[in-house]
């Protein structure tokens, strides 16, 4: 279970997250919605410790992260915490950030070999399993620049999966894709469900969110203003602003 409680994140005097709280059950697909600048990407980055935050608490399974103002960590403690968080949480970036100098296979085995110290054969066996799953078995020797945008995204997903995390974060997975590819991504994410992963997806695409989500979290000015099932948020939003957003974009 992912539990976020009263999360406060500031950049200087600007408050990005002003006390966000929500929970996501294991195995759920949760979508964080909101206008651009509402803090949803920052929230995602807090979940895998790419960002630190000032106050509040994040619990991911038995890993607990507290705000910097509540608990000061030594460098060694910070390193240990980061290691535990990242072992559990994988991420697919909006612009993917594939390693351009490595082939598809090398992209997928680099971290398992360096971080988990797996032997090459073992790492390749795991990578092959996930590359099969994203239907890229025939591209393992290609370089990222030789692939289409959709294929590149699937490499990024396989790369994250190869570390075998419990939670997968997706930052705007549909932003750079053609409409017909959006269907493929939606199917792929539902498919990851079978692997019993918990998925947290940041998106502003309401149609996409509606199709994939078990749970929707609507963020406004750094606060969670709606949180519930797809039906709750889309059909019976509690606040008029949400209603306008849902109507206007869907």
């Amino acid at each position: 279970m992912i539990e976020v409680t009263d999360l406060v994140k500031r950049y200087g005097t600007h408050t990005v997250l002003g006390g966000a709280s929500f929970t996501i059950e294991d195995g759920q697909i949760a979508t964080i919605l909101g206008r651009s600048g509402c803090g949803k990407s920052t929230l995602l980055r807090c979940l895998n410790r790419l960002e630190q935050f000032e106050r509040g608490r994040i619990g991911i399974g038995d890993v607990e992260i507290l705000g910097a103002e509540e608990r000061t960590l030594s460098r060694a403690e910070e390193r240990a915490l980061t290691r535990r968080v990242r072992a559990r949480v994988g991420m697919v970036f909006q612009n993917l950030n594939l390693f351009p100098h490595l082939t598809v296979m090398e992209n997928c085995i680099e971290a398992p070999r360096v971080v988990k110290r797996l032997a090459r054969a073992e790492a390749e066996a795991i990578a092959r399993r996930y590359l099969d799953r994203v239907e890229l078995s025939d591209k393992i020797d290609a370089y990222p620049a030789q692939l289409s945008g959709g294929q590149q995204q699937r490499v990024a997903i396989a790369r994250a999966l190869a570390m075998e995390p419990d939670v997968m974060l997706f930052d705007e997975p549909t932003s750079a894709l053609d409409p017909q590819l959006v269907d493929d991504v939606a199917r792929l994410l539902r498919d990851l469900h079978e692997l019993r992963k918990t998925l947290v997806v940041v998106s502003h695409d309401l149609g996409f969110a509606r199709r994939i989500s078990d749970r929707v979290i609507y963020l406004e000015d750094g606060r969670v203003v709606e949180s519930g099932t797809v039906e709750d948020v889309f059909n019976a939003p509690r606040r008029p602003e949400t209603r306008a957003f849902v109507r206007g974009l869907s």
Partner: protein
Amino acid sequence: MRAARWWLAIALLPLVSAPAWAESTLERVRRSGTLRIGTDATYPPLEYVEGGRCEGFEIDLANALARDLGVRAEFVNASFDGIFPALANGSFDAVISSVTITPERSASMLFSDPYYESGQRIAVRRSTQGIAGPDDLVGKRVGVQINTTAQYELEKRRGITLTPYNTIDLALLDLQAGRIDAVVGDAPVLQYMIRQSFAGLETVGRRFTDERFGIALARSSDDLRRALNAALWRIEQSGEFDRLNQKWFGEASERSGEPVATPRAFDAGILARTWRFLLAGVWLTARLSLSSLAVALPVGLAIALARLRPGAWLALPAAVYVEFVRGTPLLVQILFIYFVLPTFGVHLPAFTSGAIALSLNSAAYTSEIFRAGVLSIDEGQMEAARALGMTDAQAMRRIILPQTFRRVVPPVTNEGIALLKDSSLVSVIGLTELARTGQELASRYAAPLTIWPLVALFYLLMTFPLTRAAEYLERRWRPVTRSERL
């Protein structure tokens, strides 16, 4: 006569005075059986290099003096810039290199009794009329060797347009080409060079200055000075001094060089006589540059990484190092390592000193190339690696640096070539690399038009493989582009 970059020697002198507890210079000479003499052998017929050895009037004189003292003379051939600091820090026992005794020099070093009287003379084209003395130079364009007593003397007179040249043979070449009206220089050297290869030129008038050459010694070497004065007196009494004078400056002197009929452009005969020495220069330059580059690349990378780590305690000293090295001339760095470190008890051979100076200098520049290379990699690469669980060090090593190396091949190649050419500066500490070899040969044969193109060609031949290696790496490491879709 010559005093090239005199300020440098003066600036370094206070740093390099010999320690008081050392044995006296004369004791050291007697104990070791060698008299170490610094000379800039590009000044025929006084001192020059012939067949890889020092020759000339002053070389013969130095050998005679050493024999008289019962020791062996050992010559260190270095450019004029480097000779005086080396004398002051005890790298040589004496300097015999056509050094005019002047009051300024006497303040910082000792001189033996004068052994040679020289003076400035005027050279003109044979067709020139009306120049017979310095007064006739008013309104004329006159070439001199830079920072020589010739230049100082003419600067005192008004109305003369002075053009300074690095070496006297270049001034004579320009005179022959008609760009200047006269050349003023040390009488014996002018006469030698004109006889050797400037048939269209002649010396006119009489010597118009009186200059006396002396053996220069460190201030702490008074005992050696007295021993050399006694030896000079005995050599004069024995008639040997006259014999040397006759041999080098007499009318029948064979050593003054055979006259040639026409001014020469490229002379293949000189190539046949000099290629072995040029190749030796190539070999030294190549060894020096490659070993320096081999040190500069890893050190430069380490400096770059130290500066890139936010908050690391090494970042500040690394930044200071880069600022310091880039902000000071390489020449001063070379002189510092070779001449100043010995006063702290660090004695390094010339090659090691030169290689260290070049490495440390180049490391500062390469560090900036690597730093810029790392900064040019998209931040997302680092984030992706960290999100996969890599530590910053792992991400740097496995993800960032491999991409950086591909990008910095062209600027690093540039730096390698610059290093190769900058290596010519080590001639100040007595390393006869390619450029210095060229200087020695050009003055020996008075044939700059043959020697310098050859030197340039050899430099080109050395940079060529470097460029090719870089091209190979670039092709091999080329980031795979979209145009090659499977």
